[in-house]
């Protein structure tokens, strides 16, 4: 395999890790809620995309519908359940797991075991000896763009300022007039929307089944564990590092050792950097 296709392979793997994790990292990093229904939100994003595409919408518009569906689902989830569980991470784990169970099983009951898949757009190109889908480039670009957009939102806007203040000290933030409940509501919506983006983007590349969330959740948690709660200092380097390890090992020794290497890297990093990369790269736990 030549260098160019290796680089592309690495980009795809890192983009997958990044997109899987970014929504989870926002919700975990900002709110301390471990959202086990994250995979199901991604699944809803893909389902929304797929359903509207099969009803004749162009792909881009269908993707926006998918993101909308996941965001809406996340906001309903927050309004009905999550808001009662702030500051109780263990209970929120149990409840979001139950929500994920209901959503994926409910989807299976209502929509059946699978939806017709969406053809991957943009055709393909040949690099060296291998043929690659041009859509991969879109995915890589989208992963970087979504990360930058979230970073901009948190660092450069009034909402981001208030969100970071709430995260660091909710009481003081409230004392100076920031509505904590509103910040939590919109942060959760942001995380859900990012999950929807991931689902919508990967919808044309995967089979659309109710359990598809499961193929993202492992990577999402692995990346968030390695990275910690911060997006730019945690999630990005973690996704790149893990993506690099997995790609290199896969290229050299095959798929299995790639996954094994990922596992080993996570366990080693848990020992060496137990609070995530962000803690050491930025000098504090949160952005």
């Amino acid at each position, binding site marked *: 395999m030549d260098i160019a296709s290796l680089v592309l392979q690495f980009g795809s793997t890192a983009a997958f890790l990044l997109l899987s994790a970014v929504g989870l990292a926002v919700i975990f990093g900002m709110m301390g809620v471990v959202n086990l229904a994250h995979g199901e939100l991604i699944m809803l994003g893909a389902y929304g995309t797929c359903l509207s595409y099969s009803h004749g919408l162009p792909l881009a518009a269908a993707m926006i519908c998918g993101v909308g569906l996941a965001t809406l689902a996340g906001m309903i989830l927050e309004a009905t359940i999550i808001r009662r569980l702030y500051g109780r991470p263990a209970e929120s784990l149990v409840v979001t*797991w139950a929500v994920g169970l209901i959503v994926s099983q409910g989807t299976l009951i209502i929509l059946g075991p699978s939806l017709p898949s969406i053809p991957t757009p943009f055709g393909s190109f040949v690099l060296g000896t291998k043929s690659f889908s041009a859509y991969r480039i879109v995915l890589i670009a989208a992963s970087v763009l979504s990360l930058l957009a979230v970073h901009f939102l948190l660092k450069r806007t009034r909402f981001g300022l208030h969100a970071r203040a709430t995260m660091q000290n909710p009481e003081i933030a409230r004392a100076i007039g920031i509505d904590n409940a509103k910040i939590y509501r919109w942060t959760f919506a942001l995380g859900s929307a990012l999950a929807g983006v991931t689902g919508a983007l990967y919808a044309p590349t995967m089979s659309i089944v109710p359990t598809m969330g499961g193929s993202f959740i492992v990577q999402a948690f692995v990346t968030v564990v390695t990275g910690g709660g911060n997006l730019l200092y945690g999630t990005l380097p973690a996704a790149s590092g893990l993506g690099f390890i997995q790609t290199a090992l896969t290229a050299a020794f095959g*798929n299995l050792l790639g996954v094994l290497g990922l596992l080993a890297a996570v366990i080693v990093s848990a*020992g060496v950097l137990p609070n995530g990369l962000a803690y050491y790269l930025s000098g504090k736990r949160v952005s």
Partner: protein
Amino acid sequence: MKSILHLLEGDQTLGRGPRFWCTALVVLVGALVFGGLASSFAVDTASYFLVWVFMALGLALMWGLSGTLSFGQTAFFGLGGYCYAIVATNFGPDNGLTLVALLLSVFLVAVIAAIVGLFMFFGGARGVFVSIITLAISLSLETFLSQTAGPQWKLGSALIGGFNGITSMPPITIPWFGSDYEVTGRAFYYAIVAVLVLTYLALRIVGNSRFGDAMVAVRENPRRAEALGYNVKAVLLAAFVLGSSLAGVSGVAFTTWGLYVSPDTMGLAAAAMPIVWTAVSGKDLTATFIGTILLLALSQTLAIYGSQYAYVALGVVLIASVLTCPEGIVEKAMRLSLSQSGPGNKVRTTSRARWRNA
């Protein structure tokens, strides 16, 4: 000896006094009679329920007392199961070597839990990070084991078997005057009841011992505990190894019960189960014991009668119980009945402190 038995009752466990122990004895006698009279299918089902209780008790101890919420119970469950399957397949059923496989598996789980715990706790991970790290370990192990299909994945004479897992390992076999005695069916049931009763009593003693107090001190305020001279990391590690080893016991017991182990036992759904049992029942040992069996019976009933709605119903039950009764349904019921019977004031004070930091 007397002072050790004295520790069966204390601030860290619910239930005390003659009334509680008489009820417990009645339940035990009922379980023994059930094992003799019920149909062999019912006995096998009951054994299946009891198999999981070790793992739940381990989590109740770890989470309830030391405050460590581990998602790794299923990883250690699977490790125990796989280890027994591989060792027992290689050793064969003769000469009591399955007992060696059993002990070896639990020991191996304890060693691996100690290594993982050393990395985590001495590396400085706490709280929800421990949960996520252990979850990642469970899920990665599942991914790894699912890929082990094919003849190249072979340890000795045992094929690891990928998604399908390992089947047809020998059950626990005890050499008995020349002819081997297989511990299955009713014998397995009685064996598991005996081990479970001993484990439960031992954990009550551990919970009310000085070590139990140290775990609570660490959970309530690690810095103050450290200032008072407790080795916080060692206490957390010891609780983690103890709880994880119990998950290993469950894994071995499950494998010898069904003569089957597969990566399914480590997926996200499986990894959340012990947490669900413990959270819904309450983190007290007795409450978890009762609640785990009730919840297993409930999910089995739902699976039989609810067909595809079983999971939805299970999820709704969980959400409702966590939102309306955060201290656990069984624990709440026990507290209500215990406060009627007189003692338990002291228990209630500690429990209030417990829930503040849960």
